[in-house]
């Protein structure tokens, strides 16, 4: 489905700034209908990796094979169908939607870019579609500032799913939300995956969340993927000292 091979990105900041290897030779594979959990602390490069895969940032080197095609070699117009098939859900609900648009306008946007449906039937499709995402119809007339964070993440996910993507990068989709709202969004993501068979790259710094939600997991540290494997195995028998430290620090907060 998605194969990332030796992907790298270096940022150069300022005039005399030292180059920063944000993503350093990362390789991973996400199978169809699978959730790959990517864990790491702030600044380890996990969000950059998500952006490189979806080509929101140009990579310096490596391959991103999607359905056998190396995405990094595709240019211009030829990329557009792949844009539809790969989507990204961002972390911050307050910047996910255009504040000047109503929720309905935001949901109409995919139709303006991709040939998904005839003009006349778009609003009907939207109204039917949002029922599956727990979005009340009266929300459609509101603007982003009048909608709670959890509801915005539902709208953002519903908008993505209008495109019927096969792969979604979930970039810390619940880190700005409360635990009870987090549980709702994670349940919704699980239901969407069960129904459509979409694959997820779930980026998070919450080990417990990843353990519950993903089958396969990778740990990122300073730009490198230092350890990966089946989620349960990784928790049972972490090999890297850094992974062991992470698990210990989570266990410590759960102890009394």
């Amino acid at each position, binding site marked *: 489905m998605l194969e990332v091979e030796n992907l790298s990105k270096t940022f150069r900041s300022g005039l005399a700034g030292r180059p920063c290897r944000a993503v350093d030779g990362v390789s991973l594979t996400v199978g169809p209908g699978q959730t790959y959990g990517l864990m790491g602390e702030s600044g380890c490069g996990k969000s950059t990796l998500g952006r490189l895969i979806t080509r929101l940032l140009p990579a310096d080197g490596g391959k991103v094979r999607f359905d056998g095609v190396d995405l990094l070699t595709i240019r211009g117009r030829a990329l557009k169908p792949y844009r539809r098939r790969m989507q990204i859900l961002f972390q911050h609900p307050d910047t996910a939607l255009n504040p000047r648009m109503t929720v309905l306008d935001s949901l109409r946007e995919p139709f303006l870019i991709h040939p998904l449906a005839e003009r006349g039937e778009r609003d009907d499709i939207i109204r039917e579609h949002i029922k599956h995402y727990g979005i009340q119809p009266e929300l459609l007339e509101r603007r982003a500032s009048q909608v709670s964070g959890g509801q915005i993440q539902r709208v953002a996910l519903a908008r993505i799913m209008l495109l019927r993507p096969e792969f979604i990068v979930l970039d810390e989709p619940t880190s700005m939300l409360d*635990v009870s709202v987090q*549980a709702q969004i*994670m349940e919704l993501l699980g239901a969407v995956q069960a129904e459509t068979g979409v694959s997820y790259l779930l980026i998070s710094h*919450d080990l417990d969340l990843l353990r519950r939600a993903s089958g396969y997991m990778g740990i990122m540290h300073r730009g490198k993927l230092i350890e990966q494997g089946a989620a349960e195995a990784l928790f049972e028998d972490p090999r890297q000292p850094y992974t062991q430290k992470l698990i210990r620090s989570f266990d410590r907060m759960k102890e009394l």
Partner: protein
Amino acid sequence: MGLSLNDLCVRFATPSGEVLAVNHATVSFRQEEATGIIGETGSGKSVLGLSILGLLPAAAVSGRIFLDKRELTALGEREMCQIRGREIALVAQNPGTSLNPSLRAGRQIEEVFRLTGAGRREARARTLALLERMGFSRPEETARRYPFELSGGMRQRVLTAIAAAAQPRWIIADEPTKGLDAVVREQVYDTLRLSRREGRWGLLVITHDLLLARKLCDRIVVMYCGRVVETGPAPALFAAPRHPYTQGLIASLPHLGMKPMPGFSPAFTDQPSGCVFHPRCPYAEERCRREAPELTAAGEGSVCCHRCA
């Protein structure tokens, strides 16, 4: 000895009408304990903290707040300035923006000592000693740094040091772990625990981080829609929550099943009749729809639910 709120209400005027951000809260905190105020975004917990410090427009606040025998809500602005920082200090929500970006970390702590009458040299020495006690292994170096040169966890520790410097009787920490990753969060926990050893102050931790509250605090106050819905000793409250909302909150933790609660918190302008939690409550009966329950003493705490009355 303690901090107590008596029928506290905070009202805000919004375009869609007046909202009660804190709704008749009556609760007291003991100075020898760490109390965690937990609740979700919009439950009124931060507003509650700000009202204790008198940082809200006086017209918005009704009810009474007592620091021991003194009524804070009766004091003027000049007198409140004597209380803030000296008797009740705040560790503000966002360490990234709460420090002055153009002053070195040490200078921002020294300022507190200078304000309490210490000379320059003494303030310097006390700052370094405090930084060391806050877990910085090289205090001189940390004191020389600007906030942007410090990591999130270190900034949080500097901010806590500023609050602790004046040896206040109370420290209010507002969302100390919001948006932080596991490693930094653990550092913040250590900092707050350390700060409790440092002084004899009471600690109020306003947080939606249930695990932090459970580990750090002796008592827990749970808020929902501006109301106090349950209070109790931390171990008992987490082991056997009584209010259905507290139960739902704990069940939605990832390692305890991540079971979602049905529905959403209601808008402040559109509150349900009777018990504010009844539309989401699995045990709701006719009475819950009609009649709002009162917060009643139960065991070592209190709970606001008809089933427990």
